[in-house]
Structures are given as C-alpha cells and as structure tokens.
C-alpha cells in the first residue's frame, strides 16, 4: 500500500480567509461566531452563526463565473486554489488523467434554492435564472474544481450530513493509498446560512441562541457555520520526488453506521469508528495525543462522544487532549470535517492544540481534557478527527506527524 501525505491545504471560514489566518485564530482561541446578516434574519429565532464576513466575491470571480457559482462553490474554489497553489502541482498529461476531486457537502446550493423559491413562491415570478440547476446541484463545487484545475480522474461529491467531508477525505485517501492515483483533491464545503437554511435547523430545536459551548455543562446547542476546507492528498514517493513540503501524513480511517436512529447519536457507532481508524492506521491508543472532537455543543452529542472516547481509550483517555473547534468556527455541516482537519494538522505539525472556547462549567459526563479556552503546546504524534452525522453515519480519520 502507498503512503499518503498532505501537500496542500486551503480554507475560507468564519475564522479566516485562508489557512494562516484560520490557524492563527485557532491558536488565539478567537470566536468567529456572531450576528447573522442576511435577508429576513429578523424572522428567525436563531440569529447567530459562524458566517464568513467581509467577503467580496468579485475579488475572486468574474461576472460570468458568479452567475454559475453558488456561495458553496465559491468557497470551495477559494480553498482549492490555496491548497493546490501550496502543493505546487500542475495537472497535465497522465497526472491530470488520474487525479480527481472528492468533496463533502450536505445542502448543496442552499442560498440559490432559497433565493429562487422566494422569487417564484413569494414574489410570484414565473421565470427563474437559467443556471439555477447547475448552481444548486451538490456536485457543482467538485465539478468546478475539476474544470479549473484540469482534474480528469475520479471526481464526485459525498453527502453524509455532518460527516460528508470525512467520508470524502477517507475515500480520496483510499484511492491514493491503493495506488489508483498519485494525487487526489479532497475536503468539503457548506453554505446554508440563509433564511431557509437556518429556519429548517431552527425547527429541530437543537440550536443555541447565544453560543456554542461544547462539553461545558451549560451548553445549549449547536451553532451553524459556513465555508470550505480543501487538501491535496499525494502519494508519498510522488511528493518526495518533487521535493514538496509535507504538512502531515494520513495514516488511516474508519467508517461505521449506527443503524439505530435518524438523529440520536450512538456510543457504540462512534466507538467502533474511533477504534477502527486506529486499527486501520496500525496505531495503539496511547500513540494518540489529540482528537478533534465532533463536539457539536448539543447535550446528546457531547456526552455520547465523551463516553465513546472513554470506552475506546480506557486509562489513556485521561491523558489525551480532545477539543471542539466548532466553538470557534461553528458547525460547517458537510464542510466541517475539512476545516477541522486543519486543527489536526496544526497539532501534529506545529505542536499546538486548538482549544474548546466558551467552556464555562465542567460536566461530569464529559470528563476529558477538552483544552478549555486556551490553546496548548503539546507534542502530538497521532491525531484523530471525529465526525458523527445525523443518520448515524460516522467517519474518523487518523493523521501522523511527518518527520
């Protein structure tokens, strides 16, 4: 089997418009969650989110592109440009024919859907813009990345709600690992911070009105975010031969299904995914120094996830660090695993563990070291990234420090 390394990373999210800005915010424990700004927000009872502020689409895209790119596609392309530029790769010939892009996404072009439903239902218009369908389809972002960078290999979108990005990256890892292709672009994105998007989530009564406080006893729900994270997964010898900078090594993953409930998480399903990822990566529990938690800030997730980690790691659970960066960038749903992988890269490469901010009161049901409120220096050999989706679909990735 081939070794797989990460040679490029890109993002845009509420914490920053690129990777350096995002990592700086994570190191400083800065909160990107604030008042939502969009049409009809006053009709929502949930009015906070990790929204990308000060964003000017015209700075990155021309008029023709903007008529075709929903916000989630724009975010994806911005992240992909940063990642691929960092990798130094150019796709032509055989490499272009074999390299592809697998991205996670849950809501597709939700703002396009929202705008156009409003136009036909509320404004009573009988005509919509001709590009509504190519803008809103879930695979639009993957297709535009493929077109912009000439990626002609296996390319598609994975949709498993909050685990979409982890499933996508696991799939891309598997393709490089198995020798199908030397390079895959992987990650995910989401942009559902619009009236209809937030209203739908509001209905489920699991959203917080004031803050995302994962693992804190007074947590009262999740907060949505938006943005994208994109990575270059490259076969190690391919990367070494061209002298590429290696950010981290991807060493394994596992995927499981709870087969139990459409919204309630399962400790067994989560534990099997965590244990499975370590087994696939051939590491022992005490090799793991950091877990980027799913940590949504809901009552149900955080206690279930803590119990799963305690079960899998036994005594080592008290030594490892586990934080939820959703407290800072919000829950990016289908894009969340991708942005959270940045915290794992920072942990193994820089030895800095991002904090769980907003942490106010210990919860005996979440009695792990969740790196409360301030980032911490720690030498981390192996990091795991958890994602446990609605629908009971789980995916966990394992990264190792590249030395």
């Amino acid at each position, binding site marked *: 089997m081939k070794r797989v390394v990460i040679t490029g990373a890109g993002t845009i999210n509420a914490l920053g418009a690129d990777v350096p800005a995002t990592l700086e915010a994570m190191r400083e424990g800065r909160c990107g969650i604030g008042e939502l700004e969009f049409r009809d927000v006053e009709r929502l009872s949930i009015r906070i989110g990790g929204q990308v502020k000060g964003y000017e689409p015209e700075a990155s895209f021309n008029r023709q592109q903007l008529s075709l790119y929903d916000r989630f596609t724009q975010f994806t392309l911005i992240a992909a440009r940063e990642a691929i530029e960092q990798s130094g790769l150019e796709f032509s010939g055989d490499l272009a024919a074999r390299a592809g892009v697998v991205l996670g996404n849950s809501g597709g072009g939700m703002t396009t859907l929202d705008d156009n439903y409003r136009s036909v239902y509320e404004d009573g218009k009988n005509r919509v813009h001709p590009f509504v369908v190519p803008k809103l389809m879930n695979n639009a972002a993957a297709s535009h990345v493929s077109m912009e960078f000439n990626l002609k290999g296996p390319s598609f979108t994975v949709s498993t709600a909050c685990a979409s990005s982890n499933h996508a990256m696991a799939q891309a890892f598997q393709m490089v690992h198995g020798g199908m292709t030397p390079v895959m672009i992987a990650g995910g994105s989401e942009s559902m911070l619009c009236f209809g998007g937030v209203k739908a989530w509001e*209905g*489920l*009564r*699991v959203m*917080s009105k004031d803050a995302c406080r994962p693992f804190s006893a007074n*947590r009262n*729900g999740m907060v949505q975010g938006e943005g994208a994270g994109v990575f270059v997964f490259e076969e190690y010898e391919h990367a070494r031969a061209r002298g590429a900078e290696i950010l981290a090594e991807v060493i394994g993953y596992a995927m499981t299904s709870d087969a139990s409930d459409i*919204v*309630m998480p399962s400790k067994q399903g989560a534990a099997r995914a965590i244990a499975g990822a370590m087994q696939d990566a051939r590491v022992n529990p005490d090799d793991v120094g950091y877990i980027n938690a799913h940590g949504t800030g809901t*009552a149900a997730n955080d206690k279930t996830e803590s119990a799963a980690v305690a079960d899998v790691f036994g005594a080592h659970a008290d030594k490892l660090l586990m934080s939820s960066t959703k407290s800072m960038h919000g829950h990016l749903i289908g894009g969340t695993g991708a942005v959270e992988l940045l915290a794992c890269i920072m942990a193994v490469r820089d030895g800095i563990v991002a904090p769980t901010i907003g942490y106010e009161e210990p919860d005996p049901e979440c009695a792990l070291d969740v790196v409360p409120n301030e980032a911490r220096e720690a030498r981390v050999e192996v990091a795991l990234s958890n994602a446990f989706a609605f629908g009971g679909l789980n995916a966990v990735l394992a990264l190792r420090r590249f030395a």
Partner: protein
Amino acid sequence: MSDIEDRVIAIIAEQAVLEPSDVTLDSTLEELGIDSLGLVESIFAIEEAFDINVPFNANDPTESDFDISNVRSIVAGVRRLVKEQS
C-alpha cells in the same frame, strides 16, 4: 378553557398513536411512548394549533421555560402562552 385541554390531549394522543381517552392529565410523555423526536413534533403541532411560540430547547428540556413533565403541565403551559398572546 377545557377546550385547550382537549386540543392538547388530541395532539399528544395523535403523536402517541393512542385514543384521546387513553391520555390523562397525569400521563408523562415517556409513559405514552413519545421520544425526543415525538416531543419536538408535538411542540410544533401545539404551536401551529394555538399560534403560539413555545420556548423549548431539545438540549435541555427540563430547563426550558415550559414544563413538559406531564400532560397537565403541558396544558398549563399552553394556557399561559395563549393568555399572554391575547
């Protein structure tokens, strides 16, 4: 006022797939077999039926400003919200 009681019981009974006569004021949602999703759906149905907003967060049902410990407390909560509304 008993109209509110009957309507709330009818909504809860429908959610529990029971006859309204099987639902008493002392019944708890747990006894009626209503789980967390059923609870969220019941609250939605109550909001729609009475045109009110029920302060309820599924993360912390017991600390919401709306007592769901049994049918009686739910009826009382709805009465209060309907009264505040008018």
